């Protein structure tokens, strides 16, 4: 972190090696397009480099901060797209991949990817959520929908959506309380 703040390019290279698979992963999950996701990932690391001073370590670890940048950029890109609904439909049709289970053809070995235990923990926490709560979390986080849009999409009252999200967040926080920063 200190090396990044000192604008040490090698530190950025090391951060890229450790985090790029996750940044690209979340962007691919949101955008459904590898090229576009890599473009977003490139922007994310450049933004991290430029705005590393804005990260307040007392408010949270670095990885979630970077992932939130990636998520926000990917969602912005998604919203810019005219094909928003078409993509959303494709994801819905994908069904099994909704939670982003690692696909077998990616040639990524668990040991080769730093942070894999965290991925498993997060994935397990999501999987333990009741279906209706998991669904609103996925729609909010990975598809960038507002509460009102989620309510429309699921044909549920807005209050119900908010309640489900609140419950899901509480359960996730509890389940992931033990997760610590995993990069040096």
């Amino acid at each position, binding site marked *: 972190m200190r090396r990044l703040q000192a*604008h040490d*390019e090698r530190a*950025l*290279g090391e951060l*890229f*090696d450790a985090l*790029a*698979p*996750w940044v*690209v*992963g*979340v962007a*691919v*999950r*949101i955008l459904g397009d*590898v090229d576009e*996701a*890599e473009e977003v*990932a*490139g922007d994310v*690391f*450049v933004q991290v*480099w*430029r705005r590393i001073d804005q990260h307040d370590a007392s408010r*949270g670890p670095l*990885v*979630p*901060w970077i*992932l*939130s940048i*990636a*998520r926000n950029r990917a969602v912005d890109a998604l919203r810019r797209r005219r094909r928003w609904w078409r993509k959303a439909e494709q994801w819905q049709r994908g069904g099994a991949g909704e*939670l*982003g*289970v*690692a*696909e077998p053809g*990616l*040639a*990524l070995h668990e040991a080769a*990817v730093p*942070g*894999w235990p*965290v*991925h498993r*923990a*997060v*994935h397990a926490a*999501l999987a333990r959520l009741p279906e209706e709560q998991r669904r609103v*979390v996925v729609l909010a*986080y*990975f598809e960038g929908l507002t509460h009102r849009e989620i309510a429309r999409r699921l044909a549920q009252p807005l209050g119900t959506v908010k309640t489900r999200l609140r419950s899901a*967040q509480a359960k*996730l*926080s509890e*389940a*992931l*309380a033990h*997760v610590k920063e995993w990069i040096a």
Partner: protein
Amino acid sequence: MIDWLGMAAPPRLPRSELKGLVLGRVRAARWRPWRLAAAALALVALGGGGVWASRTIRALRAERDDLARRAAALGDTLAAFIHSPATRLIQVPVSTGGRVGSVTIFADSVGHRWLVRCDGLAPNAADQAYQLWFITRDGMRSAALMPMETDAPMVTTLDMPRTGGPVLGAAMSIEPRVGSAAPRGPMVFHLVL
């Protein structure tokens, strides 16, 4: 802890060149302010130089055009003066400093003006000058002081004196550099028309 949710997505290795591209962008961004400043300075310098060059060229062109107009007008005037039937040509051989030269006078009897050209006159000593004189009925009147420092032809125009009666002739003498009220030095020529 929703902040970690991003880790729920399966990891995906980026193409190998992405890291290089990111580091390249970072490096480029790092030097961008210097490059912008240098480019801005270069632009200012180029712009300033361009404006200066443009103004100078415009001024020089205007001066050249003005000189060309004046030269053409002088040429016309001179041709009209020399070739006028009222102009009388008088050529006087002279000897100065051991060399032979000539003084040519174009005397315009209508315009009452003389054009005098001196060729082959020896340059004056530092404290001397040639002085031209009109010979009038009332005596010699100074027409022009012509200090000559180089060995080159010399041309001057002279208006006829308003007093002293008609001009009867011309003379040239070597006088002090400041000129004399009446010829005292050696006479170069003395000609009665």
